[in-house]
């Protein structure tokens, strides 16, 4: 009787699931982290000796140099201008490219696949890197910055846009096919009306990102406020650096707010 009960107890239970996979994953991540630390020579000592410096820096950042604000208004405006123009060029390029990359608009894969490939390629390169290359081409100034932002926003907008084009209602497109429209008319009347507001929304979203990106392009000589970060830090004028940070953050927050409100109105 007792043995039967015991046996029943052992057979009634399923075996607990194996946790080997979880343990291996944790181990792997820890190994990767340790290998990374070793690769770049990470040391806690360095961190400990750096922390007081960090504190000193923060102390010197406060308070910002209020008189400096009027001097940096011009480069701040240039930053915004770069973002406006860059996003616009990027958006204008993105609209046709997204159409070419959307499988429900262009049914031939030898068009969509190369388009997607180019878009993915663009998206692998961050804006500052693009800016460094354009500075090598056009020389120092806002022009290379604008080109970098244009290409960067092309990557963002086109990716989001062709994905949303692919999810639109096929009804109006079929209707256009039925009335015998050519491809251009078919796109203008069957596709465009359905995606205009999403496009504007993505455009504004890219603009928000570009304002932030434009603020640092000056570090490689591509115009805008970024140049002044390096200057003020180089001359140890931390109070001016603080002014730059405060000004940039204020502008970014205001633009984010306006753009978010506009995007909400759209949907």
């Amino acid at each position: 009787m007792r043995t039967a009960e015991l046996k029943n107890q052992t057979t009634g239970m399923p075996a607990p699931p194996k946790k080997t996979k979880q343990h291996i994953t944790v181990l792997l991540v820890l190994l990767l982290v340790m290998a990374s630390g070793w690769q770049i020579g990470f040391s806690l000592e360095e961190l400990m000796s750096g922390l007081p410096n960090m504190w000193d820096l923060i102390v010197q950042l406060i308070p910002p140099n209020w008189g400096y604000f009027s001097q940096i208004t011009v480069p701040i405006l240039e930053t915004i201008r770069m973002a406006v123009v860059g996003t616009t060029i990027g958006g204008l390029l993105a609209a046709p490219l997204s159409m070419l990359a959307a499988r429900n608009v262009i049914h031939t894969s030898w068009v969509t696949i190369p388009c997607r490939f180019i878009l993915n390629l663009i998206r692998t390169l961050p804006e500052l890197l693009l800016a460094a290359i354009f500075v090598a081409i056009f020389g120092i100034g806002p022009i290379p910055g604008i080109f970098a932002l244009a290409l960067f926003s092309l990557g963002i907008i086109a990716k989001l846009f062709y994905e949303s084009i692919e999810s639109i209602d096929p009804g109006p497109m079929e209707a256009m096919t039925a009335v015998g429209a050519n491809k251009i008319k078919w796109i203008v009347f069957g596709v465009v009306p359905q995606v205009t507001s999403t496009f504007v929304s993505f455009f504004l979203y890219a603009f928000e990102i570009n304002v932030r990106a434009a603020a640092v392009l000056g570090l490689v000589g591509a115009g805008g406020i970024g140049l002044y970060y390096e200057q003020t830090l180089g001359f140890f004028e931390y109070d001016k650096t603080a002014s730059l940070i405060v000004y940039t953050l204020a502008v970014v927050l205001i633009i984010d707010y306006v753009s978010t409100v506009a995007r909400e109105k759209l949907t």
Partner: protein
Amino acid sequence: MKRDKSLLIIRRVLVVIAVLAVYIWAFSGLPVLQFKETSMEVISSIFSGLLQPDWTYVYDPKGEDLLRGLLDTLAIALLGTFIASFLCIPFSFMAARNIMKNKAIVGTNKFILSFIRVFPDIVLALLFIKAVGPGAFSGVLALGIGAVGMLGKLISEDMEGVDLSAREALVATGANPVKTLMFAVIPQVLPNFFSFVLYRFEINVRAATILGIIGAGGIGTPLIFALSVRDWERVGIILLGIIVMVTMIDIISGKIRARLT
């Protein structure tokens, strides 16, 4: 009815005027696009560099090579993301409205998170270079702090959507608040947490490629050097290296994320 309509029209006209004004201002202040004689030459050199990259740079047993630069970049991104994934946890809890009942604390934490989010990583890196000196270490710290803003926002918002009925059950068994969070909340947010961290890792890999431009370690340093000495074959191989690395990381991370949810 009619007044509403005319108001709407007036509002639309105002919006159009505002947008037009912004554009006129933006384009009128633009410097004229001048192609320097060298511009076209540089463009064609870059393309020829991309097509005939400097393969000898890929691996050099003695010194600075592409693989080492890319590994450094990956290491910076990995460590930065790892640090951020821990740092963001307390902020996430304290910025979730349903976990932290004190509105002042929630508000403060939401503000801190959005403050960090608008702070460009590269500016953080500049500040860290001042504090701990140039090198990969300052890059790691910049990404480690910079990612907290986005991760904290995503995770706290995910937590706000969590089913809290189990929390009541845990409280009833005599669990203290820490144990309650551990058993009733964390199991629900853990998969998304890992997914967000991986997503941020993808972003950080891209960010780490440019840290070297200001001296915060990684592949950016040899790239900016090659650009300044106009060594286009080397620029080509570094760009190819970055493109391949970022694409591979995106694919792997995307696959893992798809399996998580």
